[in-house]
């Protein structure tokens, strides 16, 4: 039995606000609405002679026809539409099959209800302003669109799903984006109910091939430390979408997975927990392997795409890999850059049968099995804990809200697949550590190497440095304690999510010379005010305080938090601009004879 089953010690039902509407009521409303929608057929579906993209993808995998996908979202829909046409024509001119599908990287305003979009600030990406824009998504070229980014998840979910279905889009997402917050929208519960209603719309057409897709990394799994928990999270989303809501669920992922072997195993694990084998909308290409050298990024694309395709073909997953343009790390790719990697992707199809048979798939399958076992544990732990701590696990609203409010770190700490082990940041040893964590650990090593080169006086060892985070960001605090240890200071780890009073208590008992605060939750100024006040009361006003992270504050009347560094400086708080700056400042406080205080 998993340990979380014994007792998580927390009443999760306390996270549900009084008066939360029944989630299934919203779903039923959506189903009723869905039955009234007249759906057109896209050029792509007409060309393939199918009623839905799912139908084609399932046929394609049986027949061994590889599909590809691309991301596209230029400044306006008109530019995006023209780029689509150019990519299509370019493929034909080169003699390769055009992409099968594209993800509309819509602007964030698309997540708002229609009537709010025009007055919200413009950001990056196209907005579909009217029926004609929507119509063109499916009737410009025979490449099937996916209504994903900012379509379902926000308060505009129902508007978007209705428009998408009308023009012949049959995969709509993104389930995991329900955890996002949209600008100018503060009603979390109303947003959730709109998402459930949109999901109900898709459920009404499950038999006709409508699919509710998720992209894991857009949601809480994007900051998970364990890939097994990715699998578990996908199982939870599937449980909510398929079992509770009645919609077909597909699970896309991939952007934060750099290692092709792990990525292949993860694809297989997600397929293993997908009993209806609904094809994933896409498999995203690696977005963390690319660096500033575009030529070197070609190697990332080639190895990433090759393994995605080999895995897809061997196991007939019916996926659609995305080849990431090598320039994407620095700019929104031009259509030519998308065409280039799409051509590479199609060319790779020739190498799949040459290389695939010689891969040691049994080792990849072994990793898959570990991921599946771990994923099931995460799922069982979460559902069981909710069932026994006041959450109605038959209500999709309650389940989604509680999981969202718990957040990624707590989900992994509470329900994680790995064994409990205090040596890891989230208290469990990951079954398969995510590449995000590996990258961070590598960053830490580079940081420590930098620190090692900075000269410092021997008196640093006498400095007592209290390190704390105002929020749950354990990485930032971890990096700071690592640096302080590395320079030889006496580091006192005060923990995460600490209040100013907590920090001052520890500073008093330890007679701290330095307090080092990392903050990312928009409270920098008020936190600093309180901290300085409490230090004064405790007669510790001469303690040096450093703050770093995101030094801003949520203020009334401003949609975005404002920078408060100048306010912090007025309070006597230092805000180092780099780790070298921080180490230099701390070292400067030390003398060989005695601490500065």
């Amino acid at each position, binding site marked *: 039995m998993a340990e979380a089953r014994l*007792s*998580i*010690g*927390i*009443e999760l039902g*306390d*996270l549900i606000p009084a008066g939360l509407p029944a989630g299934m009521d919203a779903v039923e409303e959506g189903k009723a609405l869905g039955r009234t929608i007249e759906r057109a057929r896209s050029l792509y579906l007409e060309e393939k002679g199918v009623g839905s993209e799912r139908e084609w993808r399932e046929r394609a995998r049986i027949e061994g026809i590889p599909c590809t996908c691309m991301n596209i979202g230029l400044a306006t829909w008109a530019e995006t539409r023209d780029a689509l046409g150019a990519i299509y024509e370019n493929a034909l001119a080169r003699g390769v099959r055009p992409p099968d599908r594209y993800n509309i990287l819509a602007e964030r305003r698309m997540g708002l209800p229609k009537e709010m979009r025009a007055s919200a600030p413009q950001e990056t990406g196209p907005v579909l302003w009217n029926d004609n824009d929507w119509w063109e998504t499916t009737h410009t070229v025979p490449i099937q669109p996916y209504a994903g980014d900012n379509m379902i998840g926000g308060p505009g979910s129902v508007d978007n799903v209705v428009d998408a279905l009308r023009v012949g889009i049959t995969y709509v997402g993104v389930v995991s984006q329900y955890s996002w*917050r949209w600008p100018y929208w*503060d009603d*979390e519960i109303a947003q959730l109910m709109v998402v459930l209603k949109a999901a109900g719309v898709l459920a009404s057409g499950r038999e006709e091939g409508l699919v509710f897709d998720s992209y894991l990394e857009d949601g809480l799994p994007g900051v998970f430390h364990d890939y097994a928990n990715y699998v578990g999270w996908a199982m939870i989303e599937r449980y909510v979408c398929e079992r509770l809501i009645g919609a077909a669920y597909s699970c896309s992922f991939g952007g934060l997975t750099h290692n092709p072997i792990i990525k292949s195993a993860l694809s297989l694990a997600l397929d293993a927990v997908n009993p209806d084998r609904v094809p994933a909308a896409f498999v995203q290409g690696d977005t963390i392997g690319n660096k500033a050298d575009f030529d070197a990024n070609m190697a990332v694309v080639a190895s990433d795409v090759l393994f995605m395709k080999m895995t897809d073909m061997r196991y007939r997953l019916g996926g659609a890999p995305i080849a990431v343009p090598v320039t994407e790390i620095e700019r929104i790719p031009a259509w030519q850059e998308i065409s280039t990697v799409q051509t590479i992707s199609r060319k790779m199809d020739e190498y799949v049968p040459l290389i695939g048979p010689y891969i040691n798939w049994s080792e990849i399958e072994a990793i898959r099995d570990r991921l599946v076992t771990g994923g099931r544990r995460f799922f069982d732990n979460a559902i069981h804990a909710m069932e026994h701590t006041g959450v109605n696990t038959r209500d999709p609203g309650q389940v989604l809200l509680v999981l969202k*409010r*718990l*957040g*990624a*770190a*707590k989900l992994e*700490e*509470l329900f994680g697949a790995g064994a*409990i082990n*205090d040596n890891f940041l*989230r*208290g*469990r040893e990951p079954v398969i550590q995510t590449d995000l964590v590996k990258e961070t650990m590598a960053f830490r090593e580079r940081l420590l190497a930098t620190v090692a080169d900075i000269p410092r006086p021997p008196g640093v060892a006498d400095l*007592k440095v209290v390190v704390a985070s105002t*929020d*749950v960001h354990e990485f930032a605090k971890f990096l700071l304690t690592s640096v302080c240890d590395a320079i030889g200071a*006496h580091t*006192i*780890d*005060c*923990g995460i*999510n600490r209040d100013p009073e*907590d920090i001052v*208590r*520890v500073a*008093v*008992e*330890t*007679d701290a010379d330095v307090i080092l605060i990392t903050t990312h*939750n928009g409270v920098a100024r008020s936190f600093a005010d309180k901290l300085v006040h409490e230090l004064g009361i405790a*007669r510790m006003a001469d303690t040096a305080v450093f703050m770093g992270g995101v030094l801003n504050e949520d203020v009334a009347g401003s949609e975005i938090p404002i920078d408060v560094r100048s306010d912090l400086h007025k309070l006597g708080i230092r805000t180092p601009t780099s780790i070298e700056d921080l180490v230099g400042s701390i070292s400067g406080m030390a003398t060989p004879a005695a601490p500065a205080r």
Partner: protein
Amino acid sequence: MNVVALADFGSTFTKVTLVEAGSGRLVATGSAPTTVVTDVMEGYAAAMDDALSAAPAAGATVEARLACSSAGGGLRMAAVGLVPELTAAAARMAALNAGARVELVLAGTLGDKDCLLLESCKPEIVLFSGGTDGGQADFVLENARVLSRAKVVGHMIVACNAVVAGTVAEMFAHAGWQVKVVANVMPQIRALNIGPARQAILDTFINHVIHGKGLSRTKEFGESVLMPTPEAVLRATSLLAAGTESEAGFGDLVVVDVGGATTDIHSALVDPPRRNWVQAGDLPLPSVMRSVQGDLGMRWSAPGVFEADGLWLTTELADTGWNECELRAKCEQMRVHPELLAAGPNERLLDQAIAVSCISLGLRRHSGTMSIGYRRDREVDFIQKGADLRDVGLIIGSGGVLAHDPEAARLLDRAAGRREKGSLAPVAPRIALDVNYVLPAAGLLSTRNPLAALTLIKTEVRGVSNAA
């Protein structure tokens, strides 16, 4: 038959328990009023006679005499620390766990008014703490300097920042205190080390305090008293939870003792829950813990119970016809005349309701709380304050009303069922009763024969054996 005589010098009664030396089997019990005014050994002799007369006719040879004492006010202590939630709390915990009555806690940077408080308290022992090892020194030295000016002396146990402990000790010694230096109660943040301070308190109690109370002129009294009574109960609690090398214990448990003036709660966690996802504060809690609720008791503290739980008591006792004012007056009467027993069914109901209040509030205060910190767009935080006793499987009612009321088990069950949202008190414990009040005796016996002590508890505490 060789027996061990185990005595508890209480404030009103002296109780003697005779157990077979090797097995721990209960032979007989006896009691007599405690004779504080003359010599407590007179009461002891009477209690011993009472016990021996109840022993089997074959007679019993007393092989050893062990005793604990809460006579003469028990062990009165003051705890001193720097931050109330850290070193001051650690010092208080150490004193409570040594069986003391903690009558004063001083924290922060101290001043003249704190000296006055210490002078009026006149504790038998002061436990002085402050600063982690290598940490705060200035404020600790300042506190020592201030307190050494107080016009009171006694026994001072120094358990502060090790770097300045010697200097602190010199200051107090210079002022006339009997000083002992031990390891810091909180050597670093999130580390509690109360064992050495606790042992020093017990040593000081046995070697000095108990003799200084003038309870007896006899040498025998001083030689037999090993510890304060609450310490004996805590040892028994710990033994029953953990067992011995050869015999398993019963796991996590709580002992409740409702007296006339206080409600004492002892708890022992063999395998405390590990919940990394919970923020539990900077001061870890010991696995064995004692708390004393000075405002909850059946007689002297009855007004305190009404103050804390009046609404529930009024509702609970609606059938008696007494309104809120009348109930308040009844409680006050109990304080003024603690010797009075319940007269009639309504007063018996009142006694029982007060007992339920004392137990349920005592359990709540002894246990911690769990709250959820949630703000939109911030990840949630689970904040635990105090001990998590929800998984505790056994509650033992000991002494006083829980020994004498035939419905004691129901009262305990009722009290345990009065849960409050967010409380970490036991959720579904089984109930056992120490009707013969053997836990202090078992705690004493455990110093020479733990297995026999465990046997004594298992055979004499009603319901324990069924709870396995």
